[in-house]
């Protein structure tokens, strides 16, 4: 897009800017002064290309405060010890109020600082020494503090403790980095939160805890019996919950005091003074008591999210804020008219900004994977109420509108589409997509509710409360549905399934025997025998990951401890257990995240067709080419790339194999059990594992070489390999059942802004979405084919084979045509071809 001066930008109207698709400028011109100030004033915490923005520093006050109190309380039960340490942090961490801000709370001492979590993995902690630029000045002093902290926590972190009890062979294979990633501990985690329970207010939760403790103490006075003995352990857990809840209330009141002091002694602007007094009133009220209005409910919510992240690294943000806050919006804006729509939009926009502001240190390899965001914070919108009626409300619309005004890359939204969604709400989703936000992703609610019931037996009313637990997986926000810990640490690098089937379980990249010996494929008599080997490797790969996570999960209360999360978990409060204790009634909602999944189907199809059906090549020849990483076999490789059937083209030959693979996995998913004795279905998605694993997956029969990026995710076809266009992709994806054949399936699609412009664009998208739903797909997210995409296609044509220039009666593949014509098309597209 052309560079222009600020002056000419001003001269353009909002409509003109929209026609040029300069959405950031549109947002700048349409949002309030407050939102503009807050948006521009926020520190970007996501790392670009793995690097933090200049000025970002890690916060040393937080780990120091925590550790000094932790050491003082040494010897206490872990949850109690941690509660004391967290309370000490909350009482002493510096707090601040940003100008014009109305929502309080930050994790760390200053807005440019990010949390460095010290109690999870000492290996990660030590990465900090390699980090340039984010150690606070004076650097030498900071490094000394870090060294002291690392010396203490080394060997004491949750993962250090887990590593000691893992099966050594499993540990070595897991640590090879080849088969999966993840840390099976709540030191790097995320948790579902049930706001119907939390919004009772912390004082009510404290009263409930008090009651439980009194009741238990009375029981302990009764006749001694083995049944009484576990009660002794419950008392310190309840005490820990009390300590953090009380400290949380005090933390909020520190903001109230600061706001009041500012208002009374420093602020000269009467409007802001009034706002500060309202902030003070709000922070005195929540989280101690239930919220009464929108500002209080948003503030309560944000405090809870911040407090949870003082306790641990929560890398995702399962939430359904339109559902949680909708009633308060309705009361303030529609009924009592306490707020105008614009004022409400300011609060909602700030909610997005305050969330975007949260920063947590992650080692460089993880940052590279997250591409500019702190975590995968997918907020859930829309959907149905427990009774099945439409849950969309004015807050759903407000969030969509606010998202277009503040344009933050995190949080993003996932929209629960269902047949009763009103047109006005669907249009809001469409506008966000059209504005190039890349979200909301669209989720098929009826399919996913059925899926949630199918896999875990959640009652349907509970399944209907679902939120995105991380990027993709639904989880109910109910007493027994909430999932307290990241179970997706069973994240499988699925391309290894086919690779090990080809190499008798041996990993030619990391050079060790990984999977079982399933035989030399040169000796296999038919495709069935080959497929049998694939099944065995698939089972082995899932088993090793699931085993590790199960162990991590069951030991988590002993190795880590979560007093705050437990205090806001109804089942933990009721039973005096750690929220992560699987024995407290959790129904189970585990899944195996399947990275690099589609490579299996494409590789199996190539083998079946060329080696077994057509006998065009022998397995010997194929193995020779693969062992040479295709070097010296380019013609053969191109044959495998271009002429073997590829997933996503509505071609039954390969699509049937995909279905068969999924059904094998789903059978096995019911044989794997989580600590709650529930199933482990597969969820194909990639985050950015396709890049991470590029150097860890060897040559494959789909024509891929070691080092080539893997496909970009979930069940999306390989880039450039979906040659029949978007309808064929959807048709392929509709060939398996999105309820019973897996947990959820990520699908990326590109759409052209030209097609989506104007009313006709909305009608097109709506018809497309209706068909998507009819075909039973559970997910789709859209990237715009903008000029940046087309420029990328010019540079890297292989990856953009499917981009088609569509005008009436004509079509051509963009990458086929000459540079000059391409430039011409880019120019026309940007100007908005009709």
């Amino acid at each position, binding site marked *: 897009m052309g560079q222009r001066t600020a002056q000419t930008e001003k001269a353009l109207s909002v409509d003109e800017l929209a026609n040029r698709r300069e959405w950031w400028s549109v947002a700048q011109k349409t949002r309030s002064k407050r939102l503009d100030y807050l948006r521009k004033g926020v520190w970007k915490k996501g790392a670009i290309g793995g690097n933090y923005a200049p000025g970002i520093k890690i916060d040393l006050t937080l780990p120091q405060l925590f550790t000094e109190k932790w050491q003082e309380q040494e010897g206490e039960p872990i949850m109690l010890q941690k509660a004391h340490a967290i309370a000490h942090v909350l009482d002493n961490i510096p707090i601040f109020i940003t100008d014009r801000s109305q929502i309080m709370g930050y994790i760390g001492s200053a807005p440019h600082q990010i949390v460095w979590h010290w109690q999870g993995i000492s290996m990660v902690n030590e990465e900090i020494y390699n980090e340039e630029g984010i150690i606070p000045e004076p650097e030498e002093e900071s490094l000394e503090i870090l060294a002291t902290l690392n010396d203490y926590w080394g060997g004491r972190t949750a993962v250090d403790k887990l590593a000691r009890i893992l099966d050594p062979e499993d540990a070595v294979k897991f640590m090879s980095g080849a088969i999966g990633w993840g840390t099976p501990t709540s030191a790097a985690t995320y948790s579902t939160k049930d706001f119907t329970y939390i919004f009772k207010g912390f004082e009510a939760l404290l009263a409930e805890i008090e009651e439980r403790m009194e009741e238990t103490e009375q029981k302990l006075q009764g006749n001694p019996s083995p049944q009484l003995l576990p009660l002794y352990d419950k008392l310190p857990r309840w005490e820990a919950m009390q300590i953090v809840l009380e400290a949380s209330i005090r933390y909020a009141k520190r903001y109230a005091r600061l706001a009041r002091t500012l208002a009374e002694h420093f602020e000269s602007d009467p409007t802001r003074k009034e706002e500060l007094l309202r902030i003070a009133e709000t922070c005195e009220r929540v989280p101690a008591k239930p919220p009464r209005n929108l500002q209080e409910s948003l503030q309560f919510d944000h405090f809870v999210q911040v407090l949870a992240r003082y306790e641990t690294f929560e890398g995702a943000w399962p939430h359904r804020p339109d559902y949680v806050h909708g009633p308060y919006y309705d009361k303030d804006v529609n009924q009592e008219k306490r707020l105008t729509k614009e004022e409400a939009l300011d609060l909602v926009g700030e909610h997005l900004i305050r969330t975007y502001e949260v920063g947590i240190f992650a080692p460089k390899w993880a940052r590279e994977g997250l591409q500019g965001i702190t975590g995968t914070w997918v907020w859930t919108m829309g959907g149905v109420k427990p009774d099945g009626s439409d849950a969309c409300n004015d807050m759903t619309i407000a969030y969509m509108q606010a998202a277009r005004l503040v344009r933050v890359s995190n949080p993003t939204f996932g929209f629960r589409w269902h047949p009763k969604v009103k047109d006005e709400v669907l249009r809001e989703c469409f506008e966000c997509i059209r504005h190039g936000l890349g979200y909301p992703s669209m989720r098929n609610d009826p399919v996913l509710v059925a899926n949630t019931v199918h896999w875990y037996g959640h009652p349907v009313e509970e399944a209907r409360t679902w939120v995105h637990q991380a990027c993709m997986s639904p989880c109910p926000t109910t007493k027994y549905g909430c999932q307290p810990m990241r179970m997706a640490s069973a994240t499988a690098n699925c391309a290894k399934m086919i690779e090990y089937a080809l190499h008798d379980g041996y990993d030619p990249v990391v050079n060790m025997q990984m999977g079982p010996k399933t035989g030399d494929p040169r000796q296999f008599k038919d495709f069935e025998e080959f497929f049998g080997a694939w099944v065995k490797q698939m089972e082995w790969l899932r088993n090793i990951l699931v085993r590790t996570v199960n162990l991590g999960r069951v030991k988590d209360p002993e190795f880590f401890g979560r007093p705050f999360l437990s205090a806001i978990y109804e089942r933990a409060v009721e039973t005096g257990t750690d929220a992560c204790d699987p024995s407290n009634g959790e129904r189970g909602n585990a899944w195996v995240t399947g990275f690099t999944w589609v490579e299996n189907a494409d590789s199996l199809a190539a083998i079946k067709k060329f080696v077994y059906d057509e006998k065009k090549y022998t397995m010997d020849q194929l193995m020779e080419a693969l062992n040479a990483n295709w070097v010296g076999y*380019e*013609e053969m490789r*191109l*044959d495998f790339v*271009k002429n073997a059937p590829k997933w996503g083209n*509505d071609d039954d030959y390969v699509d049937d194999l995909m279905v068969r693979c999924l059904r094998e996995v789903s059978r096995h998913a019911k044989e794997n059990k989580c600590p709650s004795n529930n199933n482990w279905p597969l969820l194909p998605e990639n985050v950015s594992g396709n890049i991470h694993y590029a150097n860890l997956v060897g040559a494959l029969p789909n024509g891929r070489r070691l080092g080539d990026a893997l496909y970009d995710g979930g069940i999306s076809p390989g880039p450039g390999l979906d040659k*029949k*266009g*978007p*309808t*064929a992709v959807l*048709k392929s994806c*509709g060939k398996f059942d999105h309820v019973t054949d897996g947990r959820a399936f990520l699908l990326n699609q590109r759409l052209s802004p030209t*097609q989506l412009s104007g*009313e*006709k*664009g909305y*009608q*097109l998208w709506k*018809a*497309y979405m*209706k*068909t998507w739903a*009819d*075909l039973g797909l559970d997910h789709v997210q859209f990237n715009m084919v903008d000029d940046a995409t087309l420029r990328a296609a010019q540079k890297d*044509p292989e990856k953009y084979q499917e981009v088609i*220039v*569509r*005008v*009436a*009666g*004509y*079509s*051509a593949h963009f990458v*086929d*045509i*000459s*540079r*000059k*014509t391409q430039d*011409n*098309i880019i120019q*026309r597209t940007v*100007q*908005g*071809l*009709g």
Partner: protein
Amino acid sequence: MESGTLVTEIQRFAVNDGPGFRTNVFLKGCPLRCQWCHNPETIAPHREIYWKRRSCAQCGACLDACPNDAVNAPIHPFEARREESTYHKIIRDRCDLCLKCVDACQYGALEIVGTRLSVNEILDEVERDRPFYDNSGGGMTISGGEPTAHPEFVVQLIEGARSRGLHICLDTNGYCQWDILGPIVQSVDIVLYDLKHLDSVKHAEMVGVGNELVLDNLVKILGTGPEIWIRHPIVPDYSDSWGYHLSVAEFLDRLPGRIQRIDLLPFHNWCQDKYSWLGRDWPLKTTESMDPSIVELLVEAYQARGFAATTGGSGFEEFVVRGGH
């Protein structure tokens, strides 16, 4: 029954050729020679070879494979890809289309244009997107080339589509005898009828023949049943003036039957590569693609008379007033 006809492409997710999501079936062969033709590969009624210079590695495999000495020796790929390069791989007048070179090419640089397909093969492919048609009022668009150049085949194709319950658009230039066109149009849902120029002399200048037959057939089609959508290409300095479109609007208004909508299709030169792949020169190559916003203005000439009119022919336009006729 004809065993099949030559098809250059079956394009799914077509969104600008009739209502909703459609699958376009491009038949090969056309009696007209419109100078702006953007599908030059559909003109000749026989198979052809594309040579895509960008994909060509200049490996020489085609040269070895050719029995007719109809392939030029490799030159440096960069040299061949230069914009101003006149190098072409195939020596067309020696080529007898044996296609051995296409088989030999590992890089997708040589491609066959034109596959012989039967009615059922086409319809099986078309039917794959039925769920999309159901939600958008879409279906099959028979296009070309010129469908009426394959009269028997097209009648069978339409009959087959009818029996499968598919919505059918026929995209025709109207240049054929009425006894051919009549039976074809009576069983389609919409005729996308090309109008290239109202003035017969100017028509002949750019298309090769006068427009009398085309206009005659247009009058005859009115009242036979299907909706008529006029498709008018807008070519710079030829059919892009306001005055001209006022006269077209008037002409259409006076027709003895209803025109459901008018799609103005701006000229573009994005097909120039197709000409180059066929080894043909294209005089309009250097004519700039039209800015659609200019065409937007012309739409008003039709709207003023109550017609529904578009730029680009989207299948998803929703008209508050659908024609006043």
